[in-house]
Every structure is written in structure tokens, then in C-alpha cells.
């Protein structure tokens, strides 16, 4: 090591220049990258009257998100935005979305559609964006209601919770221990559903024999969810069923169950993507699970954004807007727009869906 030290130890100019050349080369690379990016983007700084929309999902490169965004971009085009963008962090941490919001603020984007990783962490950045004239649409996972104009919700939160409880009760025969395997502990939407589930289990006499013994979090990480599922089995030998109200969690749990002795013995339901769940439904690990059409979520969000940007609506309760082929939507209490009822998937209908 010592020789190495000496070798690089001196400070001859040629090596300085070498470092400089290396840096310069990289810089050039970035410059081309930027230029390329700029071309693709068509520039956020569209001409007067040309509106722009940007989607900021919880995290890029997530299959559920991709379906949502697919619908979003389709909606953006249909609604008449000049350009639509998708930007976002590679990890779903609370604070990583902020600098994307900042960049969009500065780029003068008219509508920012966001699925918040943390309801509060993004707030001040969104405030700034609004000050700059942008309209904020939350979708999928809400922000603090003060920081957005409307929230596009999949379904009525309570409905989602109830249907999952109903499914699990049916699958375990109405009695026994169950557990919940959720996404991150801070996920706004999951936490709301779980709250309704707990209330329902406690209050509905039909579910008196069902005991919720544990809530665990797989952080929407495949490996982690997998191991949490495994831990549940061991810690609760009498477990009869698991609810996983997140697409990553349900898939990972299904994977574990299908590869273990618990397959067919422990019931699993929750919210999942048909394409991801198909093998597990076919092999009997999972009987039924639910979801809405995620593409519609993005689609409606785009139209809500357009309506806000055009000044047609302000986000007040009772405002209505036209969501393309999905028809008219109304803004409900708390500035929430409901997309549609959840669908229940099982072996009979799963092949009819492709998302």
C-alpha cells in the first residue's frame, strides 16, 4: 500500500490534467445526456397555453406504478396536455421525492400528480410549487390534504377494507387467527385501510371469531415481504389467513406460501395485480383477491389535473369534471375523487384481465 501511496503521492501537473480530462469527458457525457433528455421532454417551458403535466410516483420501476402511469399518460394525452412526464426516485424513501417536486416547480410544470411516500415530507415542496402556479393532484397515496388540490383515490377506503375482510373471512371459514402484511409502516393508504379493517373486525358480530394477531411490514420490498411472511408462519403456528393490502406484499407472500408446506392451509388475500398473481391463483395458493384497475387511477388523475389547470374546478367539494371515456367524476368530502369499485379476481375471471 505504501508504494501505491507514493506513486500517487506527488502532484505533477500532468496527472492533474489527467484528472481534469477525465472529469471533462464525464461532463461532456452528462451534457449530451441532458441535451437528449431535453429533447425527449420537449421542455417543460411550453409556450403560452400549452399545458404540461408531470407524474411523480412513489418509486420508478415498480410494476403497479407502471400500470398506473400508463393510464396517466394515456389520460394526459386525451385530456389535451402538450406534454406529460414521469420522473421520480428509484427508492421509495420519504424525502426522495422532494427534489423532483422542486425541479418540476422550477420547470414551470402546470400540473404535478404525486403519490406521496410520506404525507408530510413532500408538503413544503408542494406548497412552493403551488405558489409557483402549479396544480397538485395526489393519487394512489395521499399527501397531507392541505398541500394538494384533489386526491384521486382508487376506491372508497372503507370499501377496500371491507372487501378484503370479507374475502378472508370467507376463505378461513369465519373463524381463526389472521395477520396483515402491509407495505411501509407509514404508507397513508394502507394505514387507512388497516384502520377500517380493525374497526370492522371489532364491531361486526359476523367476525367475532376472527382474531387479528399481527401486523407486519414488508416495506414493499420483495425480499423483506417474503421473510416477513415466513416469520408470521413461525411466530403464529395457528395462523389461518393473511391479508396483504399491497401488490408487492401479496405476491411475495404467495410466493412463500406456494413454496412451503403452508400452501393451501393458510389463506391469502389482499390487493394484487392479476398478471403477477395468475400463477398463484392457478396453483391454488390464492383463491380470491381484489384490486381496482390501476390504469384508471392515472387516467382520472390526468383529467382532474387538466380541469384544475383550466380553472374549471378548484377542488371544492361538489365540483365535477369530465374524465374522458370514464365519464363525469365528482369531488367528494376532503377533496377526494373516487375512481371505481374494486374487482374481485379468481380462477374464473383472472384471464380476462391484462395488467
Amino acid at each position, binding site marked *: 500500500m505504501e508504494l*501505491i501511496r507514493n506513486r500517487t503521492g506527488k502532484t505533477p501537473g500532468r496527472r492533474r490534467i489527467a484528472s481534469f480530462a477525465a472529469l471533462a469527458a464525464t461532463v461532456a457525457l452528462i451534457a449530451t445526456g441532458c441535451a437528449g433528455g431535453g429533447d425527449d421532454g420537449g421542455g417543460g417551458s411550453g409556450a403560452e397555453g400549452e399545458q404540461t403535466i408531470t407524474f411523480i410516483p412513489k418509486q420508478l420501476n415498480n410494476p403497479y406504478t407502471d400500470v398506473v402511469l400508463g393510464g396517466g399518460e394515456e389520460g394526459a394525452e386525451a385530456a389535451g396536455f402538450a406534454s406529460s412526464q414521469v420522473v421520480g426516485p428509484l427508492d421509495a424513501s420519504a424525502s426522495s421525492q422532494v427534489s423532483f417536486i422542486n425541479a418540476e416547480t422550477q420547470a414551470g410544470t402546470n400540473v404535478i400528480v404525486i403519490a406521496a411516500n410520506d404525507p408530510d415530507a413532500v408538503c413544503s415542496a408542494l406548497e412552493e410549487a403551488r405558489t409557483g402556479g402549479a396544480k397538485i393532484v395526489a393519487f394512489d397515496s395521499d399527501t397531507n390534504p392541505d398541500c394538494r388540490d384533489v386526491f384521486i383515490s382508487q376506491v372508497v377506503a372503507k370499501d377496500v377494507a371491507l372487501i378484503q375482510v370479507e374475502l378472508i373471512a370467507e376463505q378461513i371459514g369465519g373463524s381463526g387467527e389472521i395477520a396483515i402484511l402491509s407495505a411501509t409502516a407509514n404508507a397513508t393508504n394502507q394505514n387507512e385501510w388497516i384502520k377500517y379493517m380493525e374497526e370492522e373486525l371489532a364491531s361486526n358480530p359476523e367476525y367475532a371469531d376472527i382474531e387479528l394477531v399481527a401486523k407486519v411490514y414488508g416495506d414493499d420490498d420483495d425480499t423483506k415481504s417474503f421473510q416477513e411472511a415466513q416469520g408470521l408462519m413461525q411466530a403464529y403456528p395457528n395462523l389461518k389467513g393473511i391479508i396483504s393490502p399491497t401488490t408487492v406484499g401479496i405476491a411475495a407472500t404467495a410466493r412463500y406460501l406456494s413454496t412451503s408446506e403452508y400452501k393451501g392451509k393458510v389463506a391469502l388475500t389482499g390487493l394484487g395485480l392479476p398478471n403477477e398473481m395468475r400463477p398463484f391463483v392457478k396453483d391454488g395458493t390464492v383463491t380470491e383477491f381484489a384490486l381496482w384497475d390501476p390504469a384508471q387511477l392515472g387516467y382520472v388523475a390526468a383529467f382532474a389535473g387538466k380541469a384544475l389547470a383550466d380553472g374549471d374546478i378548484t377542488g371544492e367539494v361538489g365540483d365535477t369534471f369530465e374524465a374522458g371515456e370514464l365519464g363525469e367524476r365528482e369531488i367528494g368530502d376532503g377533496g377526494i375523487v373516487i375512481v371505481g369499485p374494486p374487482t374481485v379476481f379468481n380462477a374464473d375471471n383472472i384471464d380476462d384481465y391484462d395488467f
Partner: protein
Amino acid sequence: MSDPVKTAPVPERVDGTTVLEAEPKGRTGWARVLLGRDAVMIYALIVVIVIAMIAVPRFASPVTTGFLLLDVIPVLLIAMPMTLVIITGEIDLSVASIAGLTSAIMGVLWQAGFDIGIVLVISVLAGVVAGAVNGFLVAVVGLPSLAVTIGTLALFRGLALVVIGDNAVANFPPELTAFFTSKLGATGIPTVMVGVVVVILFFGVLLHLTPFGRGLYALGYSQEAARFVGIKVARAKLWLFVGTGTVSALAGVYWTLRYSSARSDNASGLELAVIAAVLLGGVSIFGGKGSIPGVVAAVLLIGVINYALRLGRVSDVVLIIVTGSLLIASVVAPSVFGAISKWRHDRRVHRELPQATTSGAASA
């Protein structure tokens, strides 16, 4: 991270000849400043800024300054004491976990209804203690810092989870959180930069202008050499780890208030970003070399590229590839050119020497 204990005597030293590959190339005065490693980093920073201003629409605005600086502050803060730690040949991987722990403690105390002043003081003290734990294990017990801080990376993050669990505390005083994102007039410079500049100046002065700082370079090159001139090796290292702990806590406080969200996973993964920036800034991982201006330039360089790419809506994918490439290029390029100049030197010597030796032999 050279381990002086294990380096067995090398015969190199027996005859005392120094291994040199080139003519002595020290520079004096302006040439030294203008061609130094720091200067190169600063030129690169300027070039990148200019390119970004030309290529990325809207980059050239005070708003950029504000958002960009707010983004880089945590890395910039922690990079300062980290520079000193790495110059002494150690490393601290637990910084992000300390920031997370601080954030967690802040959240819990605030929720428990303590006065915000007390909350801040206790949170920063927690960072001091965490740093002291690292420092004790490294400096007093004498364990390798790489291993110790991998352990405390897990430990402190774990404690953060123990403290706050999966809760998030968000209701910090609005005037405080507003202060943390406020700007100095129309300049676009965040108000907190004042504090950050104080930290930068503190560590810059400490490293470059004080007897203690002088000692750190000696320490990083050779603990033995440092001890021979009376430098208290263990004490210096202990203080440096307390320094990284304290500043990490400050970064944790900043993080919590900027995002007004106290969570156990705040700042996770930040340690690698900090170390990458410090190394890019010209600090040698073996210790003994590096400077604060170089590191500041490197942090800003990464920050500018980062922000420009986001503004240009280039995917983060490009950013991480660029960060990795920059890091490797900055350390590999000197070696490559060193090898080339050695090869040229060897060739020159081979051409020149035969005559020299014949005349030498004649005198025998």
C-alpha cells in the same frame, strides 16, 4: 486505512533510496494553487455549471441555487468532518444512521411535549454520544473503523427504530420548518446556509490552519510519525469521531425540519453518497491527503449534475452511473497517467544511461 501494525519492514527502506518516478515536481506560488487538485475540482464545477446553464433550460436562475443547496446540505455538512476522519486514515460509515437516530429522538421528544429547544439540544447530544461510541471503539480500543462503523451503522439505525418504531412525527413548529426552507432575500440562498458555511469554515480552519489540523495529515500518513512529533493519536481520533457524530446529528435535525418529518429511515444510505463525494474531492482513502475546498467543490459538483439532470428530466439512472464513473475516473486517471509517465521516464533513462555507466566503469 493503512494498518501500520501489520506492515512488515520492507527492504525498500534498507538502503534509504527513495522510490521516485519522475523529476521532483513541486510547484510554488500561483502555479501550485492554479494546478492543484482542488483547483481542478473547482474548474470542473464551473464547467459543469456553464454547460448546465447552456444545455438545461431554466437552470440559470436563483431558484436553482435554493433548491440545489437545500438538496446538498446534508451531504455537505457530513462531508466536512468525514474529510478529516478519512484524512487520518479512518472511515465512518455510521453517519447516516446517526442522522436517522437523531431524527427519531427528535420526533419522540417533540411528541412527548418537550420544548423544542430541549428537543434540539438532546438530539444533538445524542449525536455526540453516538460519535463518542465510535471514537472510543476505534481510538481507545483500537478496532478497525471500517468494521466498527459497519456495526454501529446497523446499531444506530436499529436504535432509531427502537425509539420511534414505524411512526412519523410531522407536526413540528411551522415557523421552524418554514425557517429551514426559507431563502435569504432574492438571492435564492437558503437561510440555513449561513449555519452550513459556519460548519464548513470551522472544519476548513481546523484542518488547514490549526496545529491540530497539521497533526491530522501526519497522523493519516503514519501514526508512528505522528506520535514521534507528540500528536496524541487516540485523542485526535476520538474527537474526530465525536465531530462526525455531532455534525451527523445536525444533518439529522436539518433533515427532520426541512422535510418536517421525523422517521427512523431518514437519511438512510447517505453514508455512501458522503464518502463518494469526499473521495471525489481528492481525499485519499489511505489518509494523509485531501482538503476542504476540494471536497466542497466535489459535493457541489455532484449536486449540480444531480439537479441539472432532474431539471432536464433525465432519469436518476444516468445520475448514479455518472456518480460511479466520476468516482472511478478521479482515482484511476492519475494512476494511468502515472504509469505512462513512468514508462516514458524509463525509456529516457534507457537511452541516456549506457554512456554514463561506461564512464563510471572507467573510474573503477
